């Protein structure tokens, strides 16, 4: 009986760590959990607040307004023919999606310690649910953007949706995956080295300044040609620049940037999955 039985084990809990140990069947089995996690995140965030889900749109609106006052009115950053407010709103909405994904994902192990310490389910469900619930929030913010877009458009602002807009979901997916990848790497390291937690907070802030959120990519090349490479090798800058091109018809789009961004994203995601996979097995001993 031994030979037959050896093959019929459902799964093995082993000390050996495979490089990639990804059980899609199991993840699929837990799909309801993914949905419920997303629902929980969306429903509970603004419970017992007066304005409720309005906060989803108040945040980007006021940030965009502040940016417009500071960077465009005071610092005189040129946004071409596009109204600065719309320019900033687009950048901020997309950037917010990335930064919330990153910060929430990087806290995966620490904030779910209680559940992870008691019960097994594929850990990747948690970061995936973060990406999805933030996508919903981004969707709401996008609706607000569209409302302002229509307002400006009917007031004859020189804005035009580019035909490449059909690839916009793809760009957003790329943004989410990038946040997921970086977040998973950080979440894994933070279980052992708590120092990183402090780095993430201000690291994300600094990253925003080199990601072409409140200025066009071309402006950086113009004004600071010496250090423009920081922005040019930042895949986030390409994503934001490209999506602004799709939405507003401003800035540039180039094949190299997109290829480069896709490559980097998948490299980071691949690396993130490997390191996350290794960590999920023993993190409870070190966290």
């Amino acid at each position, binding site marked *: 009986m031994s030979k037959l039985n050896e093959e019929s*084990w459902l*799964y093995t809990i082993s000390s*050996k760590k495979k490089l990639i140990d990804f059980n899609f069947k199991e993840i699929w089995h837990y799909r309801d959990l993914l949905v419920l996690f997303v629902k929980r995140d969306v429903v509970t965030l603004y419970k017992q607040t007066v304005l409720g889900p309005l906060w989803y749109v108040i945040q980007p609106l006021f940030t965009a307004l502040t940016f417009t006052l500071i960077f465009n009115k005071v610092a005189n950053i040129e946004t071409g023919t596009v109204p600065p407010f719309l320019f900033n709103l687009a950048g901020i909405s997309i950037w917010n999606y990335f930064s919330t994904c990153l910060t929430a994902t990087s806290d995966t192990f620490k904030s779910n310690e209680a559940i992870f*310490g008691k*019960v097994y389910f594929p850990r990747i469900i948690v970061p995936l649910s973060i990406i999805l619930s933030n996508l919903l929030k981004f969707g709401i913010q996008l609706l607000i953007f569209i409302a302002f877009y229509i307002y400006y458009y009917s007031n004859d602002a020189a804005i035009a949706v580019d035909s490449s807009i059909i690839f916009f979901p793809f760009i957003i997916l790329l943004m989410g995956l990038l946040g997921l990848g970086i977040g998973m790497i950080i979440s894994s390291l933070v279980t052992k080295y708590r120092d990183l937690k402090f780095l993430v907070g201000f690291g994300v802030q600094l990253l925003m300044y080199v990601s072409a959120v409140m200025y066009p990519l071309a402006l950086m090349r113009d004004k600071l040609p010496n250090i423009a490479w920081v922005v040019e090798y930042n895949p986030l800058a390409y994503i934001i620049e490209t999506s602004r091109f799709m939405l507003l018809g401003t800035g540039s789009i180039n094949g190299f940037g997109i290829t480069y961004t896709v490559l980097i994203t998948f490299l980071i995601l691949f690396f993130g999955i490997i390191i996350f996979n290794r960590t999920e097995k023993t993190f409870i001993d070190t966290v």
Partner: protein
Amino acid sequence: MRTKQITNNEPRTTMSVILKAENISKQYRLGLVGTGTISHDLNRWWARMRGKEDPYLKVGAVNDRSTKADSDYVWALKAINFEVQKGEVLGIIGKNGAGKSTLLKILSRVTIPTTGEIKTRGRIASLLEVGTGFHPELTGRENMYLNGAILGMSKAEIKAKETEIIEFSGCQRYVDTPVKRYSSGMRVRLAFAVAAFLEPDILIIDEVLAVGDAEFQKKAIGKMQDISKGDGRTVLFVSHNMAAVKNLCTRAIVLENGTSVFEGGTEDAVSFYLRKKENVIDNSFPIELDKGNILDFNILDFKRNNSNLLLGEKCSLELKLEIKDPKSTKINIRYQLFDNNEKLITTLNTYHHDVNKILETKIQSFICDIPNLKLSPGFYDVGLQILDLNTKHVLFQNDKFSEVVVETGDVFKTGKLPSKQNLGVFISEQSWEIK
């Protein structure tokens, strides 16, 4: 003595192994994770690069929480092997820190073993995560779905059992109220209800989860019995409560300091575990004190033999001391009897009796007679405290000084011996008449 292993010779009716643990070990690092971490990690990585073994796997002391470790690493589990047959209820028993929780964590896939592997043919779920994953802002019903999904149920499965779960929890009225308004007892009820309706192939039950009020405890334990007995489900049952283990399990493993010291039938395992406790007590007289010595100690039955005591019979505890300065020392003796759950059952104290006269001889015997022993049959730890009443100085204290076994006896003088089970802690004198 340590490796006394008795294998189960009973013929096994079902010959299908559903779970198999091979050479499971788990190493933990003691103390803080701090500045040493990076250097150890780098050492490990360097060893791996050269194709060598992890240098820290070789070190590591046996897990004994009472001794000071001489290494930074400790083996919480060492070379555990066992098999579980389909439909079997396996008990896992051991003292605090014996490695039970670590084994459970590995079985429920929260962490992986340092060496070895566990193979399974069924889905494992555990009943030990009561209430984790509840979100305070969500209603009872929403949390029910969320918690069920965390435990691996699909939405459809939960929906099919929804009314049953709510009914079992007894929280019908509050099911659409946010959980943050629940009392802690209600949370536990709801969480247990969800977990109880899980249907995994292998279920791990940690007995301590039977919380809540008396009514619900009874319900919970009843449900556990249903699960393990009724449905022919494979169950791993972890408990300190020997009565529950005997009641539920067909086979048991005894863990001690991270190693499996016994595997076999439940009765044998339980008595091995209890005898094991006795063996820990190893007094060799004389024991030196501050102001003298303990020369001898005996617990004698009614025939003045050094054997097990009988319920309802006379017995005596005799302690022989040598006191260096008998004139200025006023000795007070206190015995305390603890049951298996380390609960204090009774106290015998010279202080409450007029025996505090000062003797001038150096060697003194303190004899405590119990005319009619009213202790429920079982094993008890005997704690001893010796106090000098003049200086209030504790000369000796050990809560596990000795152990005593009480067997059932003719306590009611009717010839009808009460059975061990369901007797309670206190056996009252009683007389009956029917009018």
